[in-house]
């Protein structure tokens, strides 16, 4: 015979497991709409219709950035890649400070005929690696890391590296 406490415990646990299962199933079902942006691969496989607004995310491909200034507004052409596919992007306006080759970005806009993505807004997505400038310079100088080509090596290789200047 179950004590009242035991019975309440099993009841609560059963409810939690059921609720957790329901939430997990719904999240799995709605997974595509929970994603903040589409990758170039997803766009290449099934591009949203021309003119429909969506978010495109990926890495700014090295060697594709070209900026021209007309009427005081800079217009930048670049390609966003995820390593397998690339989408050409045009953006008129001031880019965020963190924008650079190899940086992750999210562009909000729509496809135009011809497969070019015209962005109304570009957001910079920074990586999860935190280190002083000196360490970055040293990793770059020693050829262990180029920020344009992906994340830095394992942190154990640099997180006790000596730095000259500890402040800004």
């Amino acid at each position, binding site marked *: 015979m179950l004590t009242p406490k035991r019975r309440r415990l099993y009841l609560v646990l059963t409810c939690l497991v059921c609720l957790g299962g329901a939430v997990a199933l719904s999240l799995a079902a709605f997974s595509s709409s929970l994603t903040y942006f589409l990758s170039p691969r997803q766009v290449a496989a099934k591009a949203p219709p021309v003119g429909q607004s969506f978010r495109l995310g990926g890495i700014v491909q090295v060697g594709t950035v070209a900026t021209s200034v007309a009427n005081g507004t800079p217009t930048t052409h670049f390609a966003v890649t995820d390593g397998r596919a690339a989408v050409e992007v045009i953006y008129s306006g001031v880019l965020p400070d963190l924008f650079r080759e190899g940086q992750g970005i999210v562009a909000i806009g729509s496809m135009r005929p011809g497969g070019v993505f015209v962005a109304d807004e570009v957001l910079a997505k920074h990586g999860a690696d935190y280190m*002083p400038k000196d360490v970055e310079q040293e990793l770059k100088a020693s050829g262990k890391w180029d920020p344009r080509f992906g994340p830095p090596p394992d942190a154990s290789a640099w997180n006790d590296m000596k730095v000259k200047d500890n402040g800004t």
Partner: protein
Amino acid sequence: MKQSALNPVQSTRSGGWFHYLANPGRFQRVARPTLPWLAAFSVVLTITGIVWGYWFAPADWQQGDAARIMYVHVPAAWVAMAGYAALAFCSLLSLVWRHPLADIAAEEIGPVGAGFTAVCLVSGSLWGKPMWGAYWVWDARLTSVLILFFLYLGHIALIRAFDNKAHGYRAAAILALAGAVNLPIIVFSVQWWNTLHQGNTISLTGPSKIYITMLYPLLIASLGFYLSFITMVVARMSAAISERKTTALLRAAAEQTP
């Protein structure tokens, strides 16, 4: 009769230590002398962590000085989630074992946890503008933390919404437990879905992606934030217990006078 509710008779059934801790009178005897120490440690650790992080730790290679917001943002986010986990645990104790202290704890965790969640959201927003280029985006991480904030607010309102306190405790405990499914969603949101928010820098299982002199102040500030949370909750609980005792004594005195 009211007073006996504050010092429930100990059950001899299983889980003796739960009952030991669940006694509000005993809680007061432990909490009162501990509080000044808790408060002192939280102030010292929080100030040490933040001063170290903001003035002595190196600036970040790509984000520069803006990355220093992490010494507030990350500890606040951790405490917001741990606070909710504590709230859910108290709700379980309340629903299953009917511990009076768990109800008091749940009632007092709510506003403190909501405060830390607000700090996390506001500091994150101020960090997002200069780095991402937007104060707010509806990605999975930001949205799930906003839901955490609303769960805290809902719990605060619900637990105080009934004339019969026991009904409020029951309803709020169910809300808190159901809302606990949001915690793994917050933690794994940056892995399950594409987000604008960065992935995890600190990992319990693998190496952390942060330079050691930036990690230390972050951990010290986090310890300070955790202790501040505990201090605030224990102080609020202690005050709530005293208030109940006073109300009960006043009522008893009023009943005795003809």
